[in-house]
């Protein structure tokens, strides 16, 4: 459907708008297929989607909850933008989130009596550092030993989960749980480490602002700094980057370090922005991260690997996730349908992402021909 969709949209909306419309059309197509699935389950898709929208974006509280759900998607998405721009495929968001959560939790457990103005920034920095380390490791392996980062980051996810399970079941386990219960979680962490709530009476906390600020910083990093310039140069052509004298290996390590730092920050904010104010899991990685380490890849791709576009993108996917429960209640289809819907959007987005590049290429080609420059005929 790729070519067809592009042609149609370009004809109706003009080539400039087509770039924006393609992802929208991809989402609509996914929803259409979702509707068919709902019909097959005997539910009314209009009713279902309405409940989904209502649940996700219907009122202030829903919007706030959607925003909370979006926060880890956004931070991981920003990390993915940074890594993918450097042609480093970071599949280790889950592990880096966990690493960030672990380090920040250790900070909070180690200095519980620090004043809040110090402890809150400190735990966030702990998250950054933990994620950065967990990203730098596969980065260094790739740069200096040629280890494929897709494999190493995935495997480090598993290592991180086991490390988390070990820590939460013994060394940093809540002493009360240790004695009586079985829940793998920490004690209630120091109140001085609670992320401050934003005014307005919602559950929104300062972590949301941090995430949005990071998107802005990542934009500056990628397009306004020498390091970001090198990241993109290495991403497009390592050969040209090396020829120009850039430290290609160090740049690859930097990409995964920054990427991991963003994911680690997401992990820290999940812990210190949580209702329970504990680091808690159910033994799997999903139990803590909610798969944000993977879904963030989707939001980043949907945002065109641009940190600022990743903001609305993650808000949209956060809404889908949060609204799914409301949809389940309204029309009795399993919330898992949303997972399938997510998957469909991914398929369409990835193909449309390619599409956008193709559209851009062909536009550029047209410009070149019109401007009368040499083309080899």
């Amino acid at each position, binding site marked *: 459907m790729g070519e067809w969709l592009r042609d149609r949209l370009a004809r109706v909306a003009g080539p400039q708008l087509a770039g924006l419309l393609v992802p929208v059309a991809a989402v609509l197509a996914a929803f259409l297929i979702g509707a068919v699935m709902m019909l097959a389950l005997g539910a009314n898709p209009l009713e279902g989607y309405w409940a989904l929208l209502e649940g996700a974006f219907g009122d202030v509280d829903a919007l706030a909850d959607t925003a909370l759900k979006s926060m880890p998607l956004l931070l991981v998405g920003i990390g993915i933008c940074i890594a993918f721009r450097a042609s480093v495929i970071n599949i280790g968001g889950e592990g880096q989130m966990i690493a960030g959560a672990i380090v920040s939790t250790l900070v909070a457990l180690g200095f519980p009596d620090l004043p809040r103005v110090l402890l809150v920034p400190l735990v966030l920095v702990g998250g950054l550092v933990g994620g950065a380390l967990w990203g730098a490791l596969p980065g260094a392996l790739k740069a200096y030993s040629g280890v494929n980062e897709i494999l190493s980051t995935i495997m480090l996810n598993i290592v991180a989960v086991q490390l988390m399970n070990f820590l939460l079941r013994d060394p940093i386990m809540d002493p009360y749980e240790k004695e009586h219960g079985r829940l793998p979680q920490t004690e209630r962490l120091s109140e001085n480490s609670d992320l401050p709530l934003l005014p307005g009476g919602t559950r929104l906390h300062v972590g949301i602002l941090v995430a949005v600020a990071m998107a802005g910083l990542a934009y500056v990093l990628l397009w306004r700094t020498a390091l970001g310039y090198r990241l*993109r140069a290495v991403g*497009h052509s390592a050969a*040209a980057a*090396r*020829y120009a004298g850039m430290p290609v290996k160090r740049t690859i390590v930097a990409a995964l370090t920054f990427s991991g730092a963003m994911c680690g920050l997401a992990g820290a904010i999940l812990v210190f922005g949580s209702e329970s104010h504990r680091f808690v899991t159910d033994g799997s990685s999903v139990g803590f991260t909610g798969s944000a380490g993977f879904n963030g890849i989707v939001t980043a791709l949907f945002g065109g690997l641009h940190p600022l576009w990743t903001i609305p993108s993650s808000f949209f996917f956060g809404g889908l996730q949060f609204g799914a429960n409301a949809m389940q209640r309204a029309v009795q289809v399993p919330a898992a349908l949303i997972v399938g819907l997510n998957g469909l959007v991914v398929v369409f987005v990835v193909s449309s992402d390619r599409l956008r590049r193709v559209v851009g290429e062909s536009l550029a080609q047209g410009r070149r021909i019109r401007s009368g420059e*040499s083309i*080899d*005929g």
Partner: protein
Amino acid sequence: MADHTVPLLELRGITKRFPGVLANDDVHLDVLPGEIHALLGENGAGKSTLMKVLYGLYRPDAGEVLLSGEPSGIATPADAIDAGVAMIHQHFMLVPTLTVAENVALGLADNGMLLDTTAVAGRIRELSARYGLHVDPSAYVWQLAVGERQRVEIVKALYRDCRLLVLDEPTAVLTPLEVDELFVTLRTMAADGVGLIFISHKLDEVLALSDRITVMRDGRVTGETTPGQTSKGELADMMVGRAVQLAPDRPAADVGEVRLAVDGLRVMGDRGLESVTGCTIEVRAGEVVGIAGVSGNGQRELAEAVAGLRQPTGGTVAIDGTDVTGQHPSRVRAAGLAYVPEERMRDGVVGEFTVAENLILVDHDRDPYCRRGLLRLGAIADACRDLVARFTVKTPSLETTTSNLSGGNIQKLILARELSGEPRVLVAAQPTRGVDIGAAEYIHRRLIDERSSGTAVLVISEDLDEVLALSDRVAVMFAGRIVEVMDVADATVERLGLLMAGTGVEEVGAA
């Protein structure tokens, strides 16, 4: 050649339009039996389009193709082959894992169930002897050198009894000696009545070989002439559409101290064999040293090792007195090297980057482009606008994606960037390969200017004319080492050709 014979081929008013561009505009061309007709033009002039129309790959929007006075009826390449039209492309259409005989027999209609390779081989030997093509039918194509592969292609065409043979830039891959041999073969074919279309942009060869010359520019025929009636200069003007200076003025050299010293350098090639086998050469301030040689004799590896892109296994490289052997490219550049790489699109630019981004590729982290790690977009735009203007890079804007520029403009962009750093040593590998004449003329002038302002310039080129036009001293590279260095005044094409082919090396003694 009889003037009254019916043309073997006649292209009448061929017009071919692509979206936004008129590739062929009312083109007329005819080839008589036994005639060698040169088709001359720059990249994008419409030569390839015209030949694709002839070969049935494109359908013309207007005009007709006549073979021996009849409408050709060629709609596909298969039709073309049946009609006796053969085409030898720049990239050979051979299966490397098959033998010469198998390649020749491939696609023949009357092969039957089993391939009678002995019969095919017999015929190949016959043709080889007759046309002076040295080809072993039982050799595997992957074992053959480029020149030999080209001979296989010609044998293939002869085997199919072609009446009209189109050769697309056939000499680009050959040594001068091989070029001479090719010309002998082509003249023999012409004497047998085969019509030949010889596509080229090398003016000397066109003048030496052809009976008639048709020049194209911007999709149109801009002139038809014969070698007796024209000159190199006139042909170049017809190709470019304005007066062209073929050889740049070279003021007397004011040679200074040694700036680039390569001593006994050894470098491994990609296939794990030693490509540079003890190469020694010096380039002094204010001179151009040109390295001539047939492709694959270690020139590429030499240049890459000098630039720090390839790790030498022995010997030393010094720039301006600093030993930079095996150093990271950034160190080599810091010592004063600027490098125009052979693989322009792979190494020279980031294709997806904008023109401005590519202009700052080397100095992006230095003042004035960058302060405290932050890029200064205003300063970058100012500097880039200036560079684009000074080096006449034709681009719609600074924000244009670089891969959309033509080869000549990309090369000017690279030159602008490399020369803006005021280098001590400039290494330029194949500086004008695939670049149109106008840009090549400009690039040559810039290289000479650079040398005259005191930079040591090393030019590596497979184009002998280029080496002779630019160099103060000419070095010949063969089998990984410099076999001789001579003053340009002593360098003749014949002498260089022999050295490039490896003959006369013994007399010279090991370098």
